[in-house]
């Protein structure tokens, strides 16, 4: 594909460098000259950086699409902001959600120099304020240690994050910490520095966790699962602003926010959204169900070919290939304390699907496993079914023992899984005895058609959890901490397989 803008730019650069040095350039020199020639204000450079912003916001932009965008820009009036934006959006954003993200990112990225300067200034001020807080906290704590009697402790070794947490503590809590340090002065121990560091560090770590949790509950997750930062301050600023604004419009916020931090006040809206998504999926599944019950048809083309030798008389009939048997689905949903909130939404989703499809077997587990399929078939509404499940179940809010649960599954319900079954496990993987659980999971994997693990831990945290590595070797694991991810997974693995 020819890209006039890029092509022209390269020609100009090559001509310029040839003009300056008046000699033929080798390939490497040409490339270096090209890179040097395309300064940070070039169109190509800015488009590439903008594409990077989009990618980090979860918009999938391929190289081909970036090249299309450059080609499109060559065909519109670059001085018209509307045309410039329209050309880029037509090539880079390929869904309504992506178009929404694009619009916000565009406004923030392609802004005036004054606005950029203002943002840089603000960012610098915030950074200075943070440094001031950290240094203040360090001085305050050192002040307490100044008149230490006896063996001097080593310097208090706290990270910037811990010092920042200290500076944000309520005054009474700061005083309480200082008091603890004062009391330690009166009871000198061996190696006091290490003890002080340990006490302070664990206390500040706890406070940081507590403050973050409160903030998350209050404001929701500021950066949704789909948005990731780049490490480049300027780009991250755009990404954070877009994520904060875009995902705060009601529908999008609910779909892309961590399910755990969804506000109770949003429940009616969440319920309506889940019902809408699941009924759409159910409709698709039931349509496919009807289609798959058609009788197998004669393949006329192959029949004619086969029967040429009989003078065209169709003695041997050839049939179209038989449709694959519809798969059944098994849902095994973790309802332990850490999963209770996710489980409510996942079960509501599955409840919506089970109204149209009878081949879904549902189980919940924490310390042990229980079958809940009959509750979904009572033709009651979801909240009625949910109340029934919570009242009659002994699993809700307990600790997780996947090993015991899979053992029960194998013993009582093992025959519900076959090569045509797709098994979904919804869990954050935090279980006792992960090794034993993995062994039974392997048995289940060999028995079923596909084993999908929807993990409610954000993907960014997976590396910190060793058990995830063990389970990932057995099951196909996907992040599933937002409704959007849940919908995507169900579309891909349920609707996709229902053809």
């Amino acid at each position, binding site marked *: 594909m020819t890209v006039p803008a890029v092509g022209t730019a390269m020609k100009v650069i090559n001509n310029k460098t040839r003009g300056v040095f008046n000699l033929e350039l080798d390939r490497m020199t040409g490339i270096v000259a090209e890179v040097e020639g395309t300064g940070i204000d070039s169109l190509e450079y800015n488009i590439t950086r903008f594409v990077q912003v989009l990618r980090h916001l979860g918009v*999938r932009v*391929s190289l*081909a*699409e970036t090249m*299309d965008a450059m*080609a*499109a820009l060559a*065909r*519109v009036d670059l001085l018209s902001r*509307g*045309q410039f*934006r*329209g*050309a880029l*959006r*037509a*090539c880079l*954003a*390929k*869904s*309504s959600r992506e*178009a929404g993200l694009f619009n916000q990112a565009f406004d923030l990225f392609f802004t005036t120099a004054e606005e950029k300067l203002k943002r840089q200034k603000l960012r610098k001020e915030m950074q200075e304020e943070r440094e001031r807080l950290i240094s203040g906290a360090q001085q305050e704590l050192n002040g307490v240690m100044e008149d230490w009697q006896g063996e001097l402790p080593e310097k208090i070794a706290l990270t910037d994050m811990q010092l920042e947490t200290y500076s944000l503590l309520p005054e009474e809590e700061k005083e309480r910490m200082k008091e603890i340090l004062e009391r330690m002065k009166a009871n000198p121990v061996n190696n006091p520095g290490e003890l002080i560091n340990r006490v302070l560090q664990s206390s500040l770590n706890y406070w940081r966790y507590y403050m973050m949790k409160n903030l998350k509950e209050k404001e929701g997750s500021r950066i949704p699962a789909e948005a990731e930062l780049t490490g480049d301050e300027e780009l991250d600023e755009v990404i954070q602003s877009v994520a904060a604004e875009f995902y705060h419009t009601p529908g999008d916020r609910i779909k892309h926010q961590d399910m755990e931090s969804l506000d109770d006040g949003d429940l009616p809206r969440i319920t*309506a959204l889940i019902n809408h998504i699941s009924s*759409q999926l159910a409709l*698709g599944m039931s*349509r*496919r169900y009807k*289609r798959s019950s058609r009788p197998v048809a004669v393949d*006329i*083309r192959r029949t*004619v*070919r086969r029967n*040429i*030798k009989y*003078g*065209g008389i169709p003695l041997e009939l050839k049939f179209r290939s038989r449709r694959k048997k519809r798969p059944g689905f098994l849902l095994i949903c973790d309802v332990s304390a850490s999963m209770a909130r996710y489980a409510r939404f996942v079960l509501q989703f599955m409840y919506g699907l089970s109204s149209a499809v009878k081949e879904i077997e549902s189980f919940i587990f924490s310390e042990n496993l229980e079958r809940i399929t009959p509750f979904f078939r009572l033709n009651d509404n979801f909240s009625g079914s949910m109340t029934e499940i919570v009242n009659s179940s002994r699993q809700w809010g307990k600790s997780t023992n996947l090993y015991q649960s899979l053992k029960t599954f194998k013993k009582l319900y093992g025959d519900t899984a076959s090569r045509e079954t797709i098994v979904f496990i919804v869990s954050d993987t935090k279980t006792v005895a992960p090794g034993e659980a993995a062994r039974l999971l392997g048995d289940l994997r060999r028995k079923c058609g596909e084993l999908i693990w929807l993990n409610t831990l954000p993907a960014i945290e997976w590396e910190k959890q060793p058990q995830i590595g063990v389970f990932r070797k057995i099951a196909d694991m996907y992040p599933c901490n937002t409704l959007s991810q849940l919908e*995507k997974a169900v*579309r891909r693995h349920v*609707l*996709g397989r229902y*053809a």
Partner: protein
Amino acid sequence: MNISLNDLKKSMEREGYISEDDLAVTVYLALTLQKPLLVEGAPGVGKTEIAKVLGRVFAAEVIRLQCYEGLDENKALYEWNYQKQLLKIQIMKDACARDDIEKDLFDEEYLLERPLLKAIRTEKTVVLLIDEVDKVDEPFEAFLFELLSDFQVSIPELGTLSARKIPIVVLTSNGDRDLSDGLKRRCVYLYIDYPDIDKEVRILQTKVPEAGERLRLEVAAAVNFIRANLDLRKQPSIAESIDWARALMALDADFLGVDSISRTVNTLLKNRDDRMQLMSGNVLHDLMHRLNSVGWPEKEHDCAGCGHGHEGHK
């Protein structure tokens, strides 16, 4: 395609398609980059209409492939004329060797063109409308890749057939399911949202010129209010707001009132629950207040529950 952006926009408006700059730029790029145009949006926002309008703008035939589940290449691309083939076999069975018959049988003479093949074999530029592409199965979607990226198709018995004239391709989708990245990558993308009040007034002006200025504005404002504030099973489309304006005209209403709304709401909302939601006291009351605020304040409407006694008939 030799047309400027301005000319395209004007031509589309002349053909009755009201388009803002963004839409015109996207359509223009699809034409000049010779890429398929993928149009997404809720039902009834004017996706299919784009293809028809382009057909009129370029005086080109519109070839339509209506997608549905189970659509396969036999119905979309080509089919062999089996009856004719069988007859040929019968006629030739004693005269020719088997191999010769087989060679003759898969000649273009026995080929039945379906929309996709027809679109690439015509000598003139045509508009190929692949409507509701989100309804097809994923394998068929993948089958379209060759056509959409290279404007060619492969027929096992005949080889690869390239387009004689590159068609203008418009794909539409209601967003029932996510289309594959491969398909989206090959297209220029356009999302059409429901129009704002101004645009809908202009559409009504074009499609229902007999309606007065006040009725057009109030219908557009009412539909905008309904789309934004009611949690409906089915949002009213542009076509339905046009129908509504026509129904109101048929009843000689020159502006909206509770009575005229209740008599014509069937043309706007096709679901019983949706109609009941609109006609409930509070919603109707809010709607009438909204209408009072969009213009003609000197003549108050019949507000449900407000005691404003008035009806909008001549």
